């Protein structure tokens, strides 16, 4: 029974991992065999301002996205964990964007944020404010992408939290009520600590997924029309994965792109280890 798994592991996991590690130390244009270059790609990477810009953009995206989505999803999950009428309908409504493709979301958000035709600008003009360029504005692009990503992703995280909330025993709440704790008190002193294991999982998952953010930014900044314009305007939304894609597939520098991938891996590995160490301080397991 282990044979099919081993074939899969050797060919598609271990093999490709080792190959990309080798490419990252070589000059590889895909069309011709790789040539060993030692640390060249890594030296170039650390001296390349575009790499640092992409790294900063990725961190900025993550710092805005992860806390915002986690807090909002938790609030939503608590709200939808009560006995409401049409509860399933509400849950379903929040889950709908999760299953929609980014292309669909792109069209929906374009109807709102298109600088010429969208309602956001018609609304601003109506209340007497200046219209904005939204996704074409260097300063607004990442915050706006984060808001859209939270809107799309929140349903998924909410479902994970709901599962966590349902494991909190109701007798703990009853005891707290007898002691005279209010709703907010109960949330802060019972719910939050008792679902900290779930919160930890959510934090790890969403940090990893934002570091790998690609599709949303590619689609929403015009990559589908022209791959080299993805990550715009003026590289303001160029994150590491878009940078990697352009270098590797558009400009045929697969060795350099592999080096980016390995640096990304090291960063994620370190972040995950840090989170694991920190969890001892705040995560409670029963």
């Amino acid at each position, binding site marked *: 029974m282990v044979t099919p798994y081993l074939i899969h592991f050797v060919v598609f996991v271990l093999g490709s991992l080792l190959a990309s590690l080798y490419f990252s130390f070589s000059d590889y244009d*895909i069309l011709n065999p790789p040539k060993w270059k030692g640390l060249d790609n890594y030296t170039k990477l650390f001296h390349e301002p575009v790499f640092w810009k992409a790294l900063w953009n990725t961190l900025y995206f993550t710092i805005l996205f992860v806390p915002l989505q986690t807090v909002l999803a938790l609030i939503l999950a608590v709200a939808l964990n009560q006995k409401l009428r049409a509860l399933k309908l509400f849950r379903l409504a929040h889950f709908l964007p999760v299953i929609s493709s980014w292309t669909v979301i792109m069209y929906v958000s374009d109807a709102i944020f298109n600088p010429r035709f969208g309602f956001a600008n018609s609304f601003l003009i109506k209340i007497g404010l200046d219209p904005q360029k939204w996704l074409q504005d260097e300063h607004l692009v990442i915050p706006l992408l984060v808001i859209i990503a939270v809107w799309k992703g929140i349903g998924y995280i909410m479902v994970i939290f709901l599962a966590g909330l349902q494991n909190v025993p109701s007798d703990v709440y009853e005891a707290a009520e007898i002691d005279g704790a209010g709703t907010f008190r109960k949330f802060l002193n019972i719910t939050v600590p008792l679902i900290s294991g779930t919160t930890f999982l959510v934090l790890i998952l969403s940090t990893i997924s934002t570091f790998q953010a690609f599709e949303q930014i590619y689609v929403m900044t015009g990559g589908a029309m022209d791959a080299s314009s993805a990550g715009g305007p003026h590289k303001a939304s160029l994150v590491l994965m878009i940078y990697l894609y352009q270098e590797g597939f558009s400009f045929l520098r697969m060795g350099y792109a592999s080096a980016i991938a390995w640096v990304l891996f090291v960063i994620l590995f370190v972040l995950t280890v840090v989170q694991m160490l920190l969890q001892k301080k705040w995560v409670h397991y029963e």
Partner: protein
Amino acid sequence: MKRKFKSWGTFLLSITLVSALLLTACSDGKSKSGAGGNGDKGGKAEKVELKLGFYSSAQSDAKMQELIDKFQSEHPNITIKTESSPYNQFFQKLDTQIAAESAPDLWLSDGVLVPKYAERGVLKDLTPLIEKDLKKDDYFGLDFNKDANGKYWGVPQGIQIAVLYYNKDMFDEAKVEYPTEDWTWDDLKAAAEKLTKDSTGKYANDSAFDKNKVSQYGLTFFSITEGWMTVLKSYGGGVLDETLTKSVINTPENKQALDWIVDGMQRELLPTPSDLKSFQSNMAPFPSKAAAMRIGIYARTIDANAAELNYDVTLLPKGPDGKRFSPVIANSWVINKKAEGAKGDAAWEWVKFWATEDEVQKEWASLGEAVPVKKSVANSEEFLSGKPENKQAFLDSFEFAGTLDVNAVWSEWVGKFNDNINRAFEGEIPADQALKQADTEVQQVLDEFYKK
């Protein structure tokens, strides 16, 4: 113990299986190429299977298949296996296929991608075959695939050449004379001023015109081919020198051309790059009646005709010294360097079939997506009739046609150039600073590839 032995056994078995699989795959490939080698000596009747790649489109796939069938009936010993997918996927897959040595024997390449493959050693040098079998004067565009050393890497499949498109209804409505062949870029701008309209219907030459609410642009303008290259070149500037390895961006001519563009964009007679993002596609403003003029290649007639515009075309305007330039892209058949012997011969048969047979050229021209490669067909009534009326303008433009300084790192340097020049277009940095930065960054891209 027994258990351990068993799992080791499975492990060994699986390793053996995997290696067996790999070995058969290799020997399979070898035996095939061996057969091809024999076929080479064996004579003409030898069966050849040719792998033909092309990027597909809804408009042209049926016609392509029709021509493939015709070719197979004329060459019964050649079987064509097609490989096609939409443009982006086709080229991405092609790169990985080349790496895996499973690329098609010949494929249709976008004209701007020919040097990308040629200079990385993937394509077959077609110079001797062209010298032997094609009369160069009979065709448009052979020279557009010639590299700096005089070698030919492809034979054009269809030509894209740019002219000035104009919407007659918009000119009539604004009471502006139609463009003539004597226009300079300044004449164009003067007309654009009378054709750019805001959402309340006021034209740009009216003092009450609101440039934040443009509903109709005088000219639409996008990136290199249908944007800045024509203006730079007709002002006497350009991007790369004749070796295509050195940037000549930072010149007074380019500065003058750039000033012309920036002024037009700042007055919103032309959409800025961020204005263009409001449209679903960079190509949309003209067919969707949001622009009175465009610089457009031949393929743009398809959208203009589909939108039932009342439009025509004429030569692109002249620069201040009367210099003209029309950008050209020769989408071409290229042959894989690995296609040797009978396969290589069969691939060349296909290229000859495409380029030399009038019938094939006419059939393809009937799709209306490119100017025919063969001059006799391009000059025939079949091509010249139909909309737009002045199709002759496309043929006349060959007199001053030039390529887009295409080399192995074309898309990358175009990206760097756009990054800088777009900032000037948006009014964020002055034109001379944009040119200086573009010059440095483009040269870096060139050096990284050519000075290795």
